[in-house]
């Protein structure tokens, strides 16, 4: 599928609700570490494939399952659009 240029800013916008100023750095690390590509080039398929990794990373930051699920559900919705 062709990369959708608009998805990266949407991923950052969702992540920003939880990680604030650290959102772009967090997503950049997940994309670079697990997909080996530039974060701006992330596609919906890429996002779907790293959501679980993002979940693992966020669970290291908080024990609040509600916040984690809320965040991941936001990303899942974006990946399915």
């Amino acid at each position, binding site marked *: 599928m062709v990369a959708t240029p608009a998805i990266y800013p949407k991923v950052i916008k969702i992540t*920003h*609700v*939880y*990680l*604030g*100023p*650290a*959102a772009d*750095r*967090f997503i950049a*690390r997940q994309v670079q570490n697990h997909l080996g590509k530039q974060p701006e080039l992330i596609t919906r398929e890429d996002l779907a494939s790293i959501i679980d990794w993002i979940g693992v*990373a*966020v669970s*290291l*930051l*908080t024990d609040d399952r509600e*916040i984690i699920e809320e965040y991941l559900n936001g990303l899942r919705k974006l990946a399915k659009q």
Partner: protein
Amino acid sequence: MRQVNFRALRSVHPLIACAVLGILYLLLVSIFPANADSMTQYGWSSTEYHTIYLMIVIPMVATWFAAFYGYNWVRSYAKSIENTAEGDSYRQLANGVGWLALSLPVPTIASLILNSIANAHPGFHASAIIISNYIALILPLFAFAVIGNAARMLTATASIRISLAGARSVIFMFVLLGVAFCYLILKHFDLGSPASNNNPYFMPIWIMLLTIIVPYLYAWFVGLLAAYEFSVLATKTRGVLFSQALKLFALGLVTVIGSSIVLEYISSAAPRSGHLELNGRLLATYVFRIAAGIGFLLIAQGARRLRKIEEV
């Protein structure tokens, strides 16, 4: 204000530096001769004097460790984001926290050495008190200025402005503190003899005003403003998890700045005697040193969480 690098301890792990200072201080307390005034006042032998002194200072040394532990984590977080928009601000904040951590052991050790010299050479007593007062002023003054700069840079980066009500609250608190401070100090002076050194500070009133009172008031205003700006930053920063960590950090910073102000208040308004006294001044100093230690631990916890966000 030009940033001064924290060069002296940069190459040494903060906790190692603290351990060296702590061991040095405990050794000095143990080996310096007992103060005759304290022994006479309380009927202690030399051994009792040293034992009691050690029992009093060991918990205080523990708060130094808390301070350097907090500084270490702030420094670690600042390093982890050094290439970001907030990197410079947090590096400056780390430097400020470092100077604040140093402001716990350095004046204490200096005061012990100076007073011990004065014990052996009574003619040095006035100089010991004067130098101790200036050392106790300079480090927090510098620390608050650096932290104030950092807070201002962070709020500017985040495009956050403090409200008029908030600014007025800070000013009001400062005025209260300042007026009470001036009263508590000036009541020790004979205002009819402004050039006289015959007071617990061994300085003429005009030197006291210009070189002690005014710098303290400046430091407290800058410190209070920095504490308030950081609280607003923590409250208004977006990001649930990020904000939680920043609020912990801010709470610690506010506690440390507040405790530091109170400690300076106590040490200036209740003049130093140059020897160990078991009185309300010591108890109050103890309480607020412990509060500062707790503040530094909160700073460490907040910085740890912020650092973790940059690692996962």
